[in-house]
């Protein structure tokens, strides 16, 4: 219990450093924040001063910094320059779409990646291994926006199996495959190494010596133990998922956090940029801590 509390407290400096970086980066944006907010509409001097006071940019930088941290901790990032809505509400509205995509992509990636990795790891250093690992490398090298466009062209435009646009389940299939391929390459390599590692262990030799059939040795003894290292890297997968979501949502013109971020950068909507960056980073940190804690519970050897 104390270890868990310690981990959670350890998060605070990390978040503080990342948020300070975001705050600093946002101050480096050239131009007057009020003019950026107005995005070209003319304004009187008095209204300008009022806007400045409302944004809080007339206060000393240190006060701005502290209030930024306090607001960020409460999840308040001000209003979007563009839609005038609270940033938090915009993000909350987009979040379910990104979550669906992330889950779909992760399922596809796990299925494909684990299969390739297990097959390669069970028969290492032969042509099967080479084939699987070259496929995995191809997955890592595929531009996901390109594969997304190809998928749309073949399965939506030519074959008409799935709709090009939309937010229903069938419109989720192609984006999930596109995002899943992006993840599968890395997962395949991790799984392969974990399997090879496990296959060299004594208990595998014992299981073999007992005369267990190969599929039972792999399925029951190897896979269970090999699953832990790739799963702990789930936290890192989150970073890839977010990156992949940014691209996938753009290709498939799906709503979502990634699309929100890209549009906000293009439209110079800085509160939205700031909000998305702060929240995704916080989510990444918290997910990794949660996995750390869960890992400690599952595998007692990790304690301490």
């Amino acid at each position, binding site marked *: 219990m104390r270890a868990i509390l310690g981990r959670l407290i350890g998060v605070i400096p990390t978040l503080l450093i990342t948020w300070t970086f975001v705050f600093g980066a946002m101050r*480096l944006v050239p131009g007057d924040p009020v003019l950026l907010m107005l995005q070209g509409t003319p304004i009187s001097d008095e209204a300008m001063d009022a806007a400045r006071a409302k944004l809080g940019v007339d206060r000393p930088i240190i006060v701005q910094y502290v209030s930024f941290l306090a607001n960020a901790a409460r999840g308040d990032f001000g209003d979007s320059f563009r839609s005038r809505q609270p940033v938090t509400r915009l993000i909350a509205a987009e979040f379910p779409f990104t979550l669906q995509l992330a889950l779909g992509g992760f399922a596809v990636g796990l299925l494909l990646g684990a299969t390739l990795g297990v097959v390669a790891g069970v028969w290492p250093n032969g042509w099967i291994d080479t084939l699987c690992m070259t496929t995995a490398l191809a997955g890592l090298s595929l531009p996901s926006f390109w594969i997304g466009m190809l998928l749309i062209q073949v399965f939506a*435009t030519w074959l008409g199996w799935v709709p090009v646009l939309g937010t229903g389940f069938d419109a989720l299939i192609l984006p999930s495959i596109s995002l899943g391929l992006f993840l599968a390459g890395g997962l395949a390599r991790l799984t392969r190494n974990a399997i090879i590692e496990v296959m060299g262990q004594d208990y595998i030799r014992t299981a073999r010596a007992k005369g267990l059939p190969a599929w039972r040795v792999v399925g029951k003894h190897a896979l269970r133990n090999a699953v832990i290292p790739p799963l702990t890297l789930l936290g890192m997968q989150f*970073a*890839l998922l977010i990156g992949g979501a940014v691209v996938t949502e753009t290709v498939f013109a799906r709503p979502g956090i990634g699309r929100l*971020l890209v549009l906000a950068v293009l439209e110079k909507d800085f509160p939205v940029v700031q909000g998305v960056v702060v929240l*995704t980073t916080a989510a990444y940190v918290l997910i990794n801590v949660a996995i750390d804690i869960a890992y400690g519970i599952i595998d007692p050897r990790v304690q301490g």
Partner: protein
Amino acid sequence: MNTASPVRRPWLISRLFGAPGAVAGAIVIVVILGLAVLAPYLAPYDWNANSQCRRLAPMSVEHWFGCDLFGRDIFSRVIYGARFSLAMGLSTVAISLVFGALLGIVIAYAGGRIDRIGARVIDAMLCFPSIILAILIVAVLGVGLLNAALAVGISGIPRFARITRAATLSLAARDFVEAARSVGAGHRRIVLRHLLPNLAPILIVIATLDLGGAVLFTATLSFLGLGAQPPTPEWGAMLNAGREYVRYAPWTMIFPGLALFLTVMAVNLVGDRLSLILDPRQRDRS
């Protein structure tokens, strides 16, 4: 102290190309480099001249890869695109490598409180998903090809700094560093002559492994509209420009994407092989 004797080099090259994948990768890289250098001689048309052919004309004998919305020859544009891919990848990795390695060596060598704080900051910076960090930097610097490359380069600095710091820490504790110090070598000499040469292999491996990703990453930013802007014939930007009418003219998307895929795959094949040979932990396996 120079351990890179001439005997070792042929060994490295022959082992590097002992795998068919690495050979294929190297050939593709040479072809891409050739295209980049000889683009003005190889491209049949001007990459930026409109109305070379009918708008969105399909593939033909005159225009191998078809034409885009402005009647520009896609084959010529893909050839010119080779100038951006590897150049962008190399420069972004160079930024990450130089600044990351510098940072890592300095904080590890300084030790004490500087190292503790530095390590903390690096770990925190690694909590930004790298594409999010790059997009944030583009948001600050403004949209454009050079800014996108800069952003990708900067977003890689924490990763290189972390690896270099860890490697420097383990090296600095070794006897030969202590020996150098005891015979009166200064900080500069220890860092330049003793630490850096021993860090080089691992840095080369990481840099090569990162190169494919960097090429892809920069092209991705261009695809998102945050990097190269039209009419630049950068592959990612070409895919972005073709998005609206891709269903009527898929060739506008197929060929730039294929070129990008082949380049990244080639770099990854060579990088993978190189890491297998240079990484001491993996050396015995192959």
